[in-house]
Every structure is written in structure tokens, then in C-alpha cells.
């Protein structure tokens, strides 16, 4: 790795400049996931922060979770699970930035969440909500790179244009790392569970996933499908190669893929509506 790369990588992976999280989050991290009294305590803590609860509920009602009508935090915890609510809490500040400044990446993430959920349901997999969350967060590393180092982001975009390569390839050239690694580092600094961290870390290299191969494969396939559809903008416009390891892990076949394409094209109209509504809310002057 040359000096320039090392320097840029250091800027991006500096914990001291991580986006500041609401103080509430620190309290949440201390609570265990499945203890019943913790769950009630967690709901109480989150509900005491109105801005945070509003953001969590908005994400919980997003199409990634199949449009549940979730109206309270304790309901969200029951419907989506504590892990999901916890990761929505810590990612909501990141998404806030994304919704306003990079609508294309936000739509790509939302779409990947929706399709991850769709695949998980179709294959009858357990923990659909967690898989949807992994899909929603899979490219979170891109947001961090752009937030922390606009110089690197600019260079990455320039060489994607110039060489017509995938974004992760461009990131390697400029930074000696990529958004999957940055995202993994971020997820770990936020103490997200392994089943969310691994799909983020390995969605471009399914074979490297050791403990959560199925979830990682779903997110990989969802990324491929959403890029095939042309929905959103992830940074480059090229469909990734379908990795054999993912295809095998999920025991996919042409029939399943054809059905998924049909379902997702139908669903994307609603995803688009959700995103347009959010943009309108962002544009509207606050009351």
C-alpha cells in the first residue's frame, strides 16, 4: 500500500471522527439483546428521545420491512426484533445524511433491503427482518467514505468514469481498501451483531463469509438484482457477477429468479413512492 492510500485510509478509519451518535445509543449497547427486562428498558430509553424514535419508526415503516404499520417503539421491538431496532437506532443518523445528500445511494440501499426481505421470505428463511436490515446497511461504508473524506470520494468517482470499473475496484486503487471493509469496521465499532456485520463485510466476496453464509448470500443476490433493475444509484452502473458460492448456498434456480424479478419490479413502484415522500418531507420547511 503506498503512502497516499495509507493516509486516506487513516482519515476514514479514525474512530474519533465517527459520526456522533445520540447519547441514548451508548445506554442501549450496555443492555443485552434477549433479556426481557432489558427489552422494556430499551423501549423506555428510546422512547424518551422523540427525534430518535420518530426516525426509527419511519425506517421501521419503510418498504424494506413490508410496510408494517408500526406506531410505537415497543411494537417495533416485537415485530422487528431488538437487534433490528438497535441497528436502526444507530444507523438512523447515517441515513439522515443519506436521504438528503445522496438520494441515489439511499434508494439503492432501500431497494436492496426490500429485495433481501423478498428473497428471505421466498426461500422460507428465518430472521427475515434481520436479513432486510443487513440489506439496508450493506453499502454503509460508502456513506462513511463520503462523509469523512470527500477527496477520496471525488477520486473514486473520477476513475469509475474514466476506467468504467466497479466502485470497489476504484476504492482499492485510491484507498487500498473498499466500502465493504470500511462498513465492517464501522459495524464492529457500533457493536452490531455478527449476523449483520458479516453480510456487510462479505457482500462482494461471499466465499469469505464463514458463519453467516446464507444471510450474506441473500444480500449479495439482492444487490445483484437491484442493480440489474437499474433502480437507484450505487456509484457505478454495472451489475456484479453472481457468485457461485451464493447461488449454491441458497440453492437457486432460474424459476426462482424469474419469479423474483417479477415481484421486485412490481414492488419497486411502492419503494419509489416511499423515497419521493421522504424527499418531499426533507424539502418542506420545518413547521
Amino acid at each position, binding site marked *: 500500500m503506498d503512502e497516499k492510500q495509507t493516509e486516506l485510509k487513516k482519515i476514514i478509519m479514525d474512530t474519533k471522527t465517527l459520526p456522533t451518535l445520540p447519547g441514548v445509543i451508548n445506554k442501549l449497547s450496555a443492555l443485552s439483546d434477549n433479556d426481557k427486562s432489558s427489552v422494556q428498558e430499551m423501549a423506555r430509553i428510546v422512547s424518551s428521545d422523540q427525534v430518535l424514535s420518530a426516525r426509527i419508526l419511519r425506517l421501521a415503516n419503510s418498504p424494506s420491512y413490508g410496510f408494517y404499520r408500526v406506531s410505537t417503539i415497543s411494537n417495533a421491538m416485537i415485530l422487528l426484533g431488538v437487534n433490528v431496532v438497535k441497528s436502526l437506532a444507530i444507523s438512523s443518523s447515517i441515513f439522515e445524511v443519506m436521504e438528503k445528500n445522496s438520494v441515489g445511494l439511499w434508494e439503492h440501499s432501500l431497494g436492496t433491503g426490500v429485495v433481501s426481505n423478498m428473497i428471505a421470505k421466498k426461500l422460507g428463511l428465518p430472521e427475515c427482518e434481520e436479513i432486510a436490515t443487513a440489506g439496508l446497511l450493506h453499502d454503509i461504508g460508502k456513506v462513511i467514505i463520503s462523509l469523512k473524506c470527500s477527496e477520496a470520494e471525488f477520486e473514486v468517482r473520477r476513475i469509475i468514469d474514466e476506467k468504467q470499473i466497479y466502485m470497489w475496484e476504484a476504492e482499492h486503487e485510491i484507498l487500498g481498501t473498499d466500502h465493504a471493509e470500511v462498513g465492517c469496521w464501522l459495524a464492529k465499532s457500533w457493536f452490531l451483531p455478527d449476523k449483520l456485520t458479516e453480510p456487510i463485510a462479505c457482500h462482494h466476496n461471499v466465499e469469505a463469509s464463514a458463519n453467516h453464509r446464507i444471510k450474506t448470500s441473500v444480500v449479495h443476490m439482492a444487490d445483484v438484482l437491484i442493480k440489474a433493475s437499474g433502480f437507484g444509484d450505487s456509484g457505478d452502473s454495472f*451489475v456484479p457477477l453472481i457468485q457461485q458460492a451464493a447461488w449454491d448456498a441458497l440453492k437457486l434456480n432460474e424459476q426462482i429468479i424469474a419469479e423474483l424479478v417479477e415481484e421486485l419490479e412490481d414492488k419497486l413502484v411502492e419503494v419509489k413512492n416511499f423515497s419521493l415522500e421522504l424527499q418531499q418531507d426533507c424539502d418542506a420547511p420545518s413547521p
Partner: protein
Amino acid sequence: MQKIPLMTAKAGMILARDVFRSESEIGIPICGKDTELTDTLIARLENLKVQSVYVEGHPVWEEGDRGLDDMLRDLDSRFAKVRQDPLTAKLHDIYANYLKRSMGESGGRKTD
């Protein structure tokens, strides 16, 4: 007929299908087929959290979305790097077939 996000619906468009509450096609429709949309009606559907509606013709065109030939050309360029791979090429063909089916018939501009 086109399925459109409610946010892009405009007064004057004609409903091509009944609209139901929260996507489930059970119960009594909120609003019948052949109704002409008005601003008041659109606002009401928004309040009822309706996300999408089916309207007559193909009134909403996104930028660059000019019909089947263009869509197939865009599809090919998105798949430019992976057409040699047998698995990913399958996905390309599935998508191309889907587009031909959905755009070729009632969804396409040609029939309007």
C-alpha cells in the same frame, strides 16, 4: 395501463383498477375503476397510506425511459461486464424477457 407511485399521480388521470386500502385486495375498494383523479381524491388516498395506483395509458415517463428498445439497450449496458458469465447471463435473459412481456403489451407506449 400503468402502475405508478401515488406521489406521481396527477388530477385528470383515470384509474384503471379499483384502489384498496393498504395494498390488500380484500374488503371494499376505497375508489372504483374508471374514476378520474382530482387533487382532493389524491390527498385522500395519501392520507389512507395508499402507495401506488393503476392508471389508464402510460402517463408517467421517467427521464430516459422512452420505450422498450431503450430499456433493452440500458439493460445491455448494465450487464456489459458480466455477459460472459453463464449464471449472470441467465439473469440478463430473464430480465430481457420480463421487459418484453411487460412493455410489449398494455404497458408500452406503442399501444397508446
